[in-house]
């Protein structure tokens, strides 16, 4: 065998090896705690869209502030430093850190429960084994194998989720899809209590190193939620807290209409900081909802149109726990309304604004 032949062979083998070697599977690790916060649904104290005072409190409404538990991202496993959120992301409000992943990746969530009752992290769409499902029920697997089904106060648990093809875009989807993660220890009460966040899964070959889709310039997230604070795990303690209940309202849940708040990212009556975008950008809106009985929403963008599921529209439909993607190329500068079109929700403050810069 001549040297030349050998080198050609080696070259060919090298090419074949390089081409069959799987692309680097990335492990994406997030440090996420459930933290107790006093959340103000209308921090300006005003209806910023109508430029008038907030509507008067309902008879059994505690106020606009409630203690909640929300997911927040930390820099490392010591959970001492919050990962700062960019000013341009302030509109995310009480929704948890955005988890990005690409088909083929593994997502690791190191979860610390800083709340006063057991909580979990349950992912939609991603592949989890029973030990990382974060949802207790009788499935034939002993509870001792599933500590993630209820992380006690102060404790940490690591969830591992795979991202197979079936967690990525389907044939009718764009380059990325939306899932969500939320606590599922006592699902209905947990979701009303607050811990919830978005997951974006991008198709293989379509992602930047940070997992965002290459063909998208700006990702915007919006969660339409009817928070039944009377179903929150904190309701009794909120009622007992004179700072949160200065009128000493005697209220007991669940399903108290007066303590239901209509929110986008945890803000009512236009109090959401405005997300901004630029003319001509490819903006992808990821829109989701929580699971209350009135969580049927029809988000409507003023000023621009979107394409969702291949259809041009300016309004999409959400039902409980919906995850919908809508793509927008802004062509109309200005400050525009983004709101739910269901009468009672709009009247209840489920409205926000977004800004298109030239």
């Amino acid at each position, binding site marked *: 065998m001549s040297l030349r032949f050998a080198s050609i062979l080696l070259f060919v083998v090298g090419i074949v090896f390089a081409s069959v070697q799987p692309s680097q599977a990335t492990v994406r690790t997030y440090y996420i705690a459930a933290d107790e916060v006093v959340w103000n649904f209308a921090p300006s104290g005003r209806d910023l869209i109508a430029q008038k005072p907030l509507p008067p409190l309902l008879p059994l409404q505690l106020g606009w502030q409630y203690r909640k538990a929300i997911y927040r991202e930390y820099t490392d496993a010591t959970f001492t430093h919050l990962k700062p959120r960019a000013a341009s992301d302030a509109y995310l409000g009480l929704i948890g850190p955005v988890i990005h992943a690409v088909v083929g990746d593994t997502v690791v969530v190191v979860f610390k429960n800083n709340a006063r009752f057991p909580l979990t992290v349950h992912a939609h769409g991603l592949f989890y084994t029973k030990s990382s*499902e974060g949802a207790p029920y009788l499935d*034939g*697997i002993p509870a001792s194998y599933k500590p993630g089904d209820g992380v006690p106060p102060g404790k940490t648990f690591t969830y591992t989720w795979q991202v197979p093809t079936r967690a990525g875009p*389907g*044939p009718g989807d764009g380059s990325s899809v939306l899932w969500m993660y939320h606590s599922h220890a006592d699902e209905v009460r947990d979701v009303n209590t607050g811990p919830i966040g978005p997951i974006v899964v991008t198709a293989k070959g379509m992602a930047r190193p940070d997992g965002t889709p290459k063909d998208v310039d700006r990702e915007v997230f919006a969660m339409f939620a009817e928070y039944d604070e009377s179903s929150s795990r904190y309701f009794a303690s909120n009622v007992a807290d004179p700072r949160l209940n200065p009128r000493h309202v005697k209220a007991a849940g669940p399903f108290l209409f007066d303590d239901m708040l209509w929110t986008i990212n945890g803000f009512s009556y236009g109090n959401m900081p405005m997300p901004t975008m630029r003319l001509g950008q490819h903006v992808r809106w990821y829109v989701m909802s929580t*699971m209350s*009985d009135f969580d049927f929403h029809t988000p409507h963008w003023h000023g621009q149109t979107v394409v969702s*599921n291949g259809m041009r529209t300016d309004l999409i439909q959400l039902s*409980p*726990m919906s995850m919908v993607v809508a793509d927008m190329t802004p062509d109309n500068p200005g400050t525009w309304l983004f709101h739910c079109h269901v009468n009672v929700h709009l009247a209840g403050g489920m409205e926000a604004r977004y800004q298109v810069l030239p």
Partner: protein
Amino acid sequence: MKSVAAIAFAAFALALGICEPAVARERVHYIAADEVIWNYAPLRMNPIDGSKLPPLLPTQLGWTYRKAFYREYTDASFTRLASISPSDRYLGIVGPVIHAEVGDTVVVVFRNRTRLPLDIAPGGLRSIPKPSAVSPGATRTFRWPIGDADGPGGQDGSSVLFVYESDVNQTADESLGLIGPLIVTRRGQARADGSPIDVDREMVALFSVQDEFQDPFLSLNLANPAINPRHFTGHEKTFENDNYIHTINGFAWGNMPTPTIRMGERVRWYMLSTSTPADGHIPVWSGQTVLSQGNRSDSIQLVTPHMIADMVPDNPGVWLLVCTLNIHLMNGMEARYKVVK
């Protein structure tokens, strides 16, 4: 030369066999509407969390009511029920699964064995006139020709779903429990039994708020001390609200037998709903994802009476199938399914 001719002939025959248009078939079903005493929670507990059933609401009759269901028989004598395989026990109150390929005619020999005038009619098919009611005890044969307009559209997979039900008095008849699936497969994509060739396992789930107050058997149920041991009159202010039962395939609180599907199978879920004002469901699967209308998801909006979702299970274990609407989930609209290797 002889062998070449034989091969050519064989190839010709094979080609002929492939090209031959699908034979239009008559698919005959013997279906009766039967009165049944039905228990929504036969396990008398909630096997999803191991708890007891919730205490009866103040004016709830119980978990057992007289209902009427569509059931399949072996022949026109209506003496022997068609056997239901153990793997299909989870279907509960759902009427027999009727398959047809576009071009077929479904023939339903229908016997009304209840005390009420009823019928059986597919919703949504183009060519079916509304039938007149079949009197109690009477038998009538219905023919449903399945035309091209009844089959899958361009965006659909190989099969589409319709519901058949009794529409003499639709709301009341749905409250009886008279509803079943009609699956129409695209021409040329069906097996001999009418099921789509590109699907390994068909699953049916009926999400229904059963409104026992609207049930035409209400007076019978009230008069029966075995069903109404607390002797309610039905005029109590809370009665209607307390006698909504939140069910999947007629089972509440996880009492549906757990169906088993296999990893890697092409599973098609046919999702049905009744249409009372309390219906409108968001079924969500844990453990796997589905494709519906080309979109990847783990839930569907069942605000129309029927939807399809395709799943290729890749995650073994026992998983949840529930309605994610708070008030439905908290009232027992939950079931499990199992994925095995």
